[in-house]
């Protein structure tokens, strides 16, 4: 049985904001199936008593003092903007929430 369906891949592509053609979805679904089969080896290797490691070098409480440092100029901040209007980033109409 396939580990992942084409619909699931389509859902993930939507979540990840990547437009995909039907052919791409089909191809990726079959690839994902192989990859997932391979990586699912990790399941059940470590017992419940094994803590997960998110940072290989364990550290904690790394903070900076609440001090203001100079910002970029708006010119620098907007230097890469695909579109701008005065000192704001110009983007296509936003759907959804207000």
């Amino acid at each position, binding site marked *: 049985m396939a580990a992942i369906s084409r619909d699931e891949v389509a859902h993930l592509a939507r979540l*990840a904001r990547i437009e995909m053609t039907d052919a791409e979805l089909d191809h990726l679904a079959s690839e994902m199936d192989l990859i997932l089969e391979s990586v699912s080896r*990790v399941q059940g*290797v470590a017992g419940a008593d*094994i803590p997960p490691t998110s940072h290989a070098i364990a550290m904690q409480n790394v903070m*900076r003092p609440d001090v203001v440092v100079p910002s970029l100029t708006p010119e620098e901040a907007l230097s*890469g903007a695909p579109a701008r209007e005065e000192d704001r980033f110009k983007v296509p109409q936003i759907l959804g929430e207000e």
Partner: protein
Amino acid sequence: MSTPIIHQTAAEMSADLASGSVTAVELATAHYDRIAAVDSDVHAFLHLDREGALAQAASVDASRKAGEKLHPLAGVPLALKDVLTQKGIPTTCGSKMLEGWRPPYDSTVVANLKKAGVVILGKTNMDEFAMGSSTENSAYGTTHNPWDLSRIPGGSGGGSSAALAAFEAPLAIGTDTGGSIRQPAAVTGTVGVKPTYGSVSRYGLVAFSSSLDQAGPCARTVLDTAMLHEVIAGYDAKDSTSINAPVGKMVEAAKKLDIKGMKIGVVKELSGEGYQAGVLTRFNEALDALVSAGAEIVEVSTPSFEYALAAYYLIAPSEASSNLARFDSMRYGIRIGDDGSRSAEAVMNMTREVGFGKEVKRRIILGAYALSSGYYDAYYGSAQKVRTLIKRDYEAAFAKVDVLVSPTCPTTAFKIGEKSDDPLAMYLNDVATIPVNLAGIGGMSLPCGLAPEDGLPVGFQIMSPALKDELMYQVGGTLEAALQSKWGAPLYASAPELAVK
């Protein structure tokens, strides 16, 4: 006949600069000439900053003339992997997504290089967002291995290692998430080091997998690599994961040439089946050299390494799926489909479809899946636990030995196109390098000869405990010296001549 200037090591260039027998401008110019002559075939560089580099070289020369005390590497040229930001210089990460983007800030690595007076020649090619082992995933064409132009130079940092092997630069910066410094070093007969996680700042390194990424030094010799290591390493308050500890004495360690009494562990799980015969031959010869130099070799077992590849291909894509979300065409990078009628969401979807290559999309989707509610524990959670086991395996091993060794990769450089349609086969390339990243420890690859069957470079990997990176340099420096005295010359000197245009 004297060695051409570009064939010198960085240490030799440093000495010549200090003695005044060469200037930084001459050095930079010689390398730009070499790049002009061979890079159309090699394609190591994506962008050359000739004007900026020559200006910096001139300023180093002026400082030297004025009698200022300079860093030993001041005036020595370097090739920078295109995944690190350099203010005002295009930074693409090998992706169409960032075509034309010029960051408004310097990465800490670049700031450190500039402070030391290292001359940055340009940006080198790489697999898109550092995802790959061949540079075939670059949106800007594949880099070719100077040892055989029909073969891959490794990846993701194939551009940096090819630049070294083609004598286009004596020093280079790479980044290593699962082997992207060491595997390219191995297949191009150069040296590359992945430092302990947190010892080189990640600020300005465009993230692939935050908990695994680490920038590191690349060169043609262990000593050059050590010199560069000391320039780029050090605490940086801008990176929360940066380790606040003094940088070890890498150069001193590289110069020691003494490993008498050291215990070196051979990782049982990282050899044998799946490893090319010639790779094992050269690896075993290197072990003999280490024994002759006075080290004791023992076999060490790390049973969890069996799951390292699987854990890596869950953790890295998961983090990548989140790290790469910011490429949405709103603030920087390319924007596709904004015709005034489409919504921001539609434009994001179209931009990401066009801007990302196949491998990047594959990993984003894989990562999104592994983090989904309902699958998190089975995939991402399990992988993070495997990571704990791998760390423990290393801890147990390092309780018995000073360093661990293995071949850097199972095979020598493969043909361009050979594995590009088989992601799983491609992923297997990293089987020996990945455990190092998962545990955050140091790893080095240095050349240990040419495989008898194909005449291509073989990499020898040395792994050192976290924050004991100098051990890699000590062992690496000794091994390099032993092998070179056996060969009569450094391995890179036997690289085939490239056609000069």
